[in-house]
């Protein structure tokens, strides 16, 4: 047992002063975590390196206010004291403290925590009447002295503080322990670290300004935390996340509840927070407590569309009154880094001091303007700058912030792309030297080869199996390959062996290595419209892990022993293998082979080619069968709008091309879904508490309202009670005249979906494991470890599961449920950010594409109306996969009238809206716009200095646009709509027939071969969710929310959710 010492602490709680006595145990052996330690401390984990010139100990004030500077990776040898950490926790809250903790855990940062208050000799009790900050400084100094003595004076120790008194008091007490102010420290030791100096200046300025605020109160004070907590418990206040309406950022915000905390059962919708006063300094994303206003003051959400920067007009069209409230307190700030644009000189106002306080406009419209004090206002005008928020007092109209880093001039491509990354909290630094050193060596001259010792431990499939891969053209990171062969017949009849072989990334990326940590932080590969940021270094993702054709590679395999007739699974084998991919096909090529166009590969030997074609055919058949099985379970076929930008060498957009689906996409996708499903079953069975799975919760019924209303306008009924019913009714909602109708309805259904999410099995009851979209009871991600970190975790789990089964205990205990759940959250967040960034970057390129065109000559295109608003309609442009708002009333109150020849003119008049059409009445006549009517629109770009550019649509004619596409511009455009519609119809019929067939056959217990005709007819099937993600890999656009986001008020339900479903 260890000696004890007792200390008195004074503490007050519940407003009353209470004297609380706490014990405090001290010990002699507190690890110092320095590699120079002479006393043999029990240093486990991260230790400070010995090759720095000094160690630096920041005091509590510095840690609290200047943590951002200490986060620079260049500053090494940091010793945080426990005193300073606790000060951060007390004064800055959990968020900041967690940031400090993750800094301490991050092995890339050379910093440690020294528990000085538990060390017998470095602890100093607080004296009577001593102010807290003085005591903290004394503690930190004492700790610095102890640290210096503990290391026998081998390293000088520098303590940095902002307290000039402390500098004077302590600096000459001990030799070897220096006390400096932060500025002096930076000047002396890091004169070349310009960024740190600038950051210091900007933070210090912001701190100085904070002191002298006006006294006039602009907002009501927030209630103290205890009152809020009690109020939430009693049901008086409600807790939720604040969502600001992007299109009415000044006025409209909604509070969405987290399901569990909602005690008020009658509140099943969001709460509206109207106006800046009621919002009371809450910023988008904050966790707030709201109090409901009396029913008399309730308001409806605005249903009119607003034009870009349209002014609010007196007369507002409102929907049904909904619960309205005001923010009484903020439970958790959720501030991140924001990108702002500095205004040009004429707009800045001088404050009469030597510095300027500037109101900068954030890029994100939902964030209020931020007040920044800076000396650099002149040089920074029209630049985009990263800022962080510091505070928002009740006396100030705007929040205070400080600048962190300059991105560049607004409007330049590089700046804009960086802006997108920052706004989505994606921070990507190039891979470091140390990380690259961990990589296996491989160069064109001396390619990487397999290790003979490793070969013995793996199942060798090089000679026995015909393995091939099908990927997009030009794909470098091949992470999945397939194989199929027939086995000797068993007792039940002939058997097939289907194999899915996935790149064995975990063999190269061991848990806890620097590369692993970096990959974990990135969580996914980021695909923007014109570039990508890999999760793993290129040597792995494009070479050593990539399952390229003709070379030996390690793989992780799942192999099914199937009955050739019924496709019943006899046995499943999981394990590590060694493969050599024979063919590296791309989709179009594979499809051509299937179709019998043999002209493509002359180089292949004939007998091998026939083998390949045979395998492809078997595979297609298996995939169809699997798909039919899932369809019976209720798998949804959803539609996203996919367009990809074709770029030339200078990264200029040459065309926006919609994707064309092939059946082979689906074949590959189906095999991958099957593999994911079986792996999910396996790991869930083996680790019921800590397996990483992916689920897709059923959507909330109220989100289907728009879909149902639109469908009703056309006379279809959509049954949304279950996924099977939804899939069936979507299949029936086909308008023979207009194939787009079905497509649009599917898009709307997709929007209503919630996101599929990763989760840890211990954190969720079993009945919530269900994947709604795919209609599977267990699902995970296993097949793309090169570009998704979740797959890497699943690979590790699967390896551990195999090891357990073979009797060997896993070398390390797998992550606990809690860690895994945290990890799942992290990956979910990153995925969302990645999708959003991709979408925004695609929009950026769309704008660039349309900007380069001459607005006058820009040709018009066809659009379909899919939703009705009070002053306009929402349209979808199939040619570009665009969605946007079309205004029928302009700012002067004029409305569109359609003349006899279909041309449109603006005239004074009125606008009438009903459920399925909107009509404009003017002196010269009435014109009506119906749901799903085709119109012609012209696309132009609306530029904006502070925000992203947006596209503007203008009505040209109320008839469908018939001009044929010039063939040279969009070489791979979709086939003419008519044929597509027909083929879709055929496909529906065929599939229903097939399902019926399958049901009948299941009764009889046998399955007959599908006829060749059926195979041919089915080939234009629309892509499912999985193949959509495959498209993402080709940098295509997964734009599922745009229409909701443009819509403004009424469909906030969808607009507020950052991204839509994906499998």
């Amino acid at each position, binding site marked *: *047992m*260890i000696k*004890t010492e*007792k200390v008195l602490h004074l503490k007050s709680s519940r407003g*009353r002063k*209470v*004297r*609380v*006595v*706490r*014990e*405090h*145990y*001290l*010990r002699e052996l507190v*690890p110092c975590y320095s590699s120079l330690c002479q006393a043999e401390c029990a240093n486990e984990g991260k230790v400070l390196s010995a090759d720095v010139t000094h160690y630096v100990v920041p005091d509590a004030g510095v840690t609290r206010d200047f943590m951002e500077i200490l986060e620079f990776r260049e500053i090494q040898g940091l010793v945080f004291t426990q005193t300073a950490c606790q000060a951060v*926790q007390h004064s800055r*809250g*959990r968020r900041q403290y967690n940031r400090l*903790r993750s800094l*301490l*855990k991050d092995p890339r940062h050379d910093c440690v*925590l020294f*528990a000085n*208050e*538990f060390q017998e000799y470095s602890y100093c009790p607080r004296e009577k009447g001593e102010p807290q900050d003085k005591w903290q400084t004394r503690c930190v100094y004492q700790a610095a002295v102890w640290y210096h003595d503990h290391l026998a004076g081998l390293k000088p120790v520098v303590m940095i503080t902002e307290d000039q008194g402390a500098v004077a008091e302590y600096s000459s007490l001990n030799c070897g322990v220096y006390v400096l102010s932060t500025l002096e420290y930076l000047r002396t030791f890091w004169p070349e670290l310009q960024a740190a100096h600038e950051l210091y200046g900007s933070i210090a300025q912001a701190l100085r300004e904070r002191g002298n605020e006006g006294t006039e109160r602009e907002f009501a004070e927030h209630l103290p*935390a205890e009152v809020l*907590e009690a109020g939430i418990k009693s049901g008086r206040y409600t807790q939720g996340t604040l969502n600001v309406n992007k299109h009415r950022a000044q006025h409209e915000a909604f509070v969405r509840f987290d399901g569990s905390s909602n005690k008020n059962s009658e509140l099943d919708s969001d709460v509206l927070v109207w106006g800046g006063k009621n919002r009371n300094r809450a910023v988008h994303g904050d966790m707030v407590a709201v109090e409901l206003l009396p029913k008399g003051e309730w308001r409806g959400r605005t249903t009119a569309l607003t034009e870009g920067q349209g002014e609010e007009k007196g007369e507002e069209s409102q929907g049904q009154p909904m619960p309205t409230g005001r923010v009484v307190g903020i*439970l958790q700030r959720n501030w991140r880094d924001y990108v702002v644009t500095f205004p040009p000189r004429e707009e800045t106002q001088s404050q009469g001091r030597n510095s300027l306080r500037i109101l900068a406009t954030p890029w994100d419209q939902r964030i209020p303007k931020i007040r920044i004090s800076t000396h650099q206002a002149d040089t920074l005008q029209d630049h985009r700058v990263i800022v962080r928020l510091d505070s928002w007092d009740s006396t100030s109209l705007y929040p205070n912030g400080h600048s962190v880093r300059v991105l560049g001039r607004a409007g330049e491509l590089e700046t804009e792309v960086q802006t997108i990354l920052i706004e989505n909290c994606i921070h990507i630094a190039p891979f470091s030297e140390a990380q690259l050193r961990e990589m296996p060596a491989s160069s064109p001259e001396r390619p990487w080869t397999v290790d003979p010792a490793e070969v013995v431990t793996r199942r060798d499939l090089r000679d026995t199996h015909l393995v091939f891969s099908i990927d997009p053209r030009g794909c470098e990171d091949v992470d999945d390959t397939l194989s199929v062969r027939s086995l000797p017949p068993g007792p039940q009849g002939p058997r097939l062996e289907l194999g899915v072989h996935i790149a064995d990334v975990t063999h190269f990326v061991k848990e806890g290595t620097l590369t692993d940590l970096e990959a974990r932080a990135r969580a996914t590969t980021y695909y923007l419209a014109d570039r990508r940021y890999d999760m793993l270094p290129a040597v792995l993702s494009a070479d050593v892990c990539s399952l390229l054709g003709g070379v030996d590679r390690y793989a992780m395999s799942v192999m099914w022993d199937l009955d050739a007739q019924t496709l019943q699974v006899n046995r499943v084998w999981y394990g590590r293998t060694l493969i050599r991919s024979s063919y590296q096909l791309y989709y179009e090529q594979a499809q051509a082979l299937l179709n019998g166009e043999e002209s493509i590969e002359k180089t292949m030997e004939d007998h091998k080619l026939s083998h390949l074609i045979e395998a492809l055919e078997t595979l297609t058949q298996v995939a169809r069968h699997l798909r039919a099985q899932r369809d019976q379970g209720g798998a949804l076929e959803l539609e996203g709008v996919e367009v990809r930008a074709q770029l030339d060498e200078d990264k200029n957009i040459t065309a926006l091309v919609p994707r064309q689906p092939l059946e082979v996409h689906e074949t590959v996708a189906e095999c991958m879904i099957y593999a994911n499903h079986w792996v999910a079953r396996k790991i869930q069975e083996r680790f019921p*508490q800590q397996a990483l799975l992916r689920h897709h919760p059923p959507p909330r019924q109220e989100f289907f309202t728009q879909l149902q209303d639109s469908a009703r306008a056309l006379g279809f009924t959509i049954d949304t009670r279950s996924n099977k019913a939804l899939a069936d009714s979507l299949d029936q909602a086909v308008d023979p005249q207009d194939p787009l109708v079905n497509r649009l309805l599917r898009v709307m259904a997709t929007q209503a979906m919630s996101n599929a999410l990763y989760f840890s099995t211990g954190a969720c009851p079993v009945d919530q494991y269900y994947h709604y979209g795919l209609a599977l009871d267990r699902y995970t991600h296993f097949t793309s470890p090169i570009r998704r970190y979740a797959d890497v975790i699943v690979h590790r789990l699967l390896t551990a599961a195999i090891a357990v089964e073979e009797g060997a205990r896993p070398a390390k205990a797998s992550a*606990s449920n*809690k860690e895994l759940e945290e990890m799942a959250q992290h990956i979910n967040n990153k995925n969302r950010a990645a999708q959003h960034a991709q979408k925004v970057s695609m929009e950026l390129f769309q704008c660039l594409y349309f900007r380069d065109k001459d607005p006058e000559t820009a040709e018009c295109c066809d659009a379909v109306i899919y939703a009705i608003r009070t002053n306009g309609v929402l349209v979808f442009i199939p040619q570009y996969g665009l969605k946007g708002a079309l205004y029928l009333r302009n700012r002067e109150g004029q409305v569109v009238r359609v003349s006899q020849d279909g041309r449109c003119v603006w005239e004074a008049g009125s606008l009438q809206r009903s459920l399925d059409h909107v009509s404009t009445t003017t002196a010269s006549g009435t014109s009506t716009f119906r749901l799903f009517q085709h119109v012609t629109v012209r696309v132009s770009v609306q530029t904006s200095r502070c925000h992203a550019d947006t596209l503007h649509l203008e009505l040209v004619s109320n008839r469908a646009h018939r001009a044929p596409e010039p063939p040279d511009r969009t070489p791979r455009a979709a086939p003419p709509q008519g044929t597509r519609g027909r083929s879709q119809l055929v496909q529906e019929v065929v599939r229903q027939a097939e399902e019926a067939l399958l049901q009948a056959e299941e009764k009889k217990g046998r399955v007959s071969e599908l006829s060749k005709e059926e195979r041919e007819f089915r080939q234009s099937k629309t892509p499912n969710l999985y193949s959509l993600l495959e498209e993402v890999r080709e940098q295509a656009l997964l734009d599922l929310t745009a229409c909701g986001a443009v819509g403004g008020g009424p469909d906030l339900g969808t607009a507020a959710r950052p991204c839509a479903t994906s499998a």
Partner: protein
Amino acid sequence: MAGVELLSDQGYRLDGRKATELRKVQARMGVFAQADGSAYIEQGNTKALAVVYGPHEVRMSRSKTLHDRAVINCQYSMATFSTAERKRRPHGDRKSTEMSLHLKQTFEAAVLTNLYPRSQIDIYVKILQSDGGNYSACVNAATLAVIDAGIPMRDYVCACTAGFVDETPLADLCHAEESGGGTSLALALLPRGGHIALLQMDARLHQDHLETLMEAAMTACKGVSKVLDQVVRQHLQEVSALTGE
């Protein structure tokens, strides 16, 4: 809301202990001359006083007399000044009645009551200062008092609490840890045979973790028993030295 961090990343608890370390235990036996047996114990800042009278004839209602063994009568109370806020604590409130019952059950399991048929043993325990683990302090104090009274027992009864934070079992919770909202398990053990005299747990706990938590509590109880044994031996030495003179 933002709860305090009960276990830091470095493995320290709020008061500087590691997860398995106990608070400092100090105890004295024979603090009162009038009583048959008495003891005082400090477990960290939790301080308890125990007094034992008996065995004597049954003074309560006659009907309670047992023919084959002694009746054990326990009474638990807390001083008004024992917590941070001063509070009058009348006799017989629910909490102390429950605690009395627990103590009674514990000692019925440990004391060799069948040696004293038709008699009664009174155990009175008072918490002077409360800082978490009241029950275990009471049990430990009462054990010493019973030994001081010279009443034969099967073994020491040692009690200790254990909690569960971040997948780690914590031994001997202090008040701040107990009120943190986590699980708390109280265990009274007869350490030599490993028999459990009483086990009590209030909050929810996943059944997978129960075993590790029990293990931690048992280890802690054994630690306590060592200290108690030392105290008894030292007391005996002092007493024998006095009588020897």
